[in-house]
């Protein structure tokens, strides 16, 4: 695919083109935090930031999502019959998404869309109608460890276009037909630009100091890791709150509930988290993951063993480091995985 140049003084024109028929979102600074918001001009968006505080997964998998509605009247011909909510009516562009977050969507594609039965139309619809324009990381944070879990600060997986900040301009790499359509009209890059981008990539990779080793985790059996003694220490300080799962770009557990209000009713799904004791509680009172240890172990086993076993080696972690930064008791996923690998 083609390599183009997007000059920084041409950004507004480029963004205008993007938001003509689509909703355009980008990271912005709000109350001292980096979050996502609709933008129309280049100066509204952030171009120099580490990453958004929360993962952008709620664009495809909102924390609260109405799935169906029904008329809450038994006896009415249409009463009590579930009708799916309409699909997204306008396509979207996410600008300046980080490569790790884009990679996470591809991991989630493997889970939300597996076959004819396991085929989440809510997820798929939004994925298909969204274009992802990535912004390569030239300055990874000390908590980033993407290169050790199969991702990269300049990674292209899951993106339609990757922008690399070359100082006075961006190198725009089209990665899909959708991306090609967006940047096709831009001037072509010169050999020197690509070489500079390659240098920046190498430098960025070099800045990632910490990381995880996975070789032994991969070769060990499920039960060997499950019974390992490390979990007794990992769980000790854990609060069993939902922070790590809610900020995580690949965590995707949810709960489905019905709500009624007079003659209206809806079925809605909300993010849920494996740290909650209620999550697996049976109606009979039996709980298969009844202790804090079971629940803490589940999160790490799910990401680093269960998903790889089931999804052809793909890891359920992209190394964004959000959980490391936000965990109220500083449970560091890098340490946990390295202990699993010890």
């Amino acid at each position, binding site marked *: 695919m083609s390599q183009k140049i997007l000059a920084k003084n041409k950004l507004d024109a480029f963004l205008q083109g993007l938001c003509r028929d689509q909703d355009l979102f980008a990271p912005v600074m709000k109350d001292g935090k980096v979050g996502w918001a609709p933008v129309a001009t280049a100066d509204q968006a952030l171009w120099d930031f580490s990453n958004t505080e929360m993962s952008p997964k709620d664009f495809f998998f909102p924390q609260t999502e*109405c799935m169906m509605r029904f008329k809450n009247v038994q006896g009415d011909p249409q009463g009590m019959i579930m009708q799916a909510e309409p699909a997204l009516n306008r396509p979207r562009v996410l600008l300046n998404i980080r490569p790790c977050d884009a990679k996470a969507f591809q991991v989630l594609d493997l889970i939300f869309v597996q076959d004819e039965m396991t085929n989440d139309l809510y997820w798929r619809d939004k994925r298909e109608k969204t274009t992802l324009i990535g912004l390569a990381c030239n300055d990874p944070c000390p908590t980033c460890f993407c290169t050790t879990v199969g991702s990269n600060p300049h990674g292209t997986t899951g993106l339609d276009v990757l922008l690399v900040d070359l100082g006075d301009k961006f190198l725009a790499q089209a990665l899909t037909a959708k991306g090609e359509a967006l940047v096709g009209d831009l001037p072509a890059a010169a050999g020197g630009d690509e070489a500079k981008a390659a240098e920046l990539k190498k430098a960025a990779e070099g800045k990632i100091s910490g990381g995880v080793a996975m070789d032994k985790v991969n070769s060990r059996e499920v039960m060997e890791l499950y019974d390992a003694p490390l979990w007794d220490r990992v769980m000790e300080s854990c609060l069993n709150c939902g922070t790590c799962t809610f900020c995580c770009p690949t965590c995707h557990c949810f709960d489905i509930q019905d*709500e009624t*209000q007079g003659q*209206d*009713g809806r079925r*809605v799904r909300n993010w849920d988290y494996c740290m909650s004791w209620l999550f697996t509680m049976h109606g009979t009172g039996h709980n298969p993951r009844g202790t804090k240890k079971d629940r803490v172990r589940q999160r790490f086993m799910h990401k680093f063993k269960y998903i790889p076993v089931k999804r052809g080696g793909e890891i359920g972690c992209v190394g964004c480091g959000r959980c490391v930064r936000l965990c109220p008791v500083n449970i560091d996923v890098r340490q946990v995985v390295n202990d699993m690998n010890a």
Partner: protein
Amino acid sequence: MFARRRFAVLKNLLEYVGIEPGRLHFSWISSAEAEKFQKTVAAVTEDVKALGPAQHMIKDIRKVA
């Protein structure tokens, strides 16, 4: 009597977050005070009526979510 302390704190808290004081009422009525009951119902209804329909704390599931 224990409830009284709880109600006091709760009433203050709800007022504090912006629920109009007139929306929440407490009263003591003994089972013999039918007239006080009648009067209190009327007073409570008047107070709430004066405030108009509630605006806060209502969960509206018809909204898009």
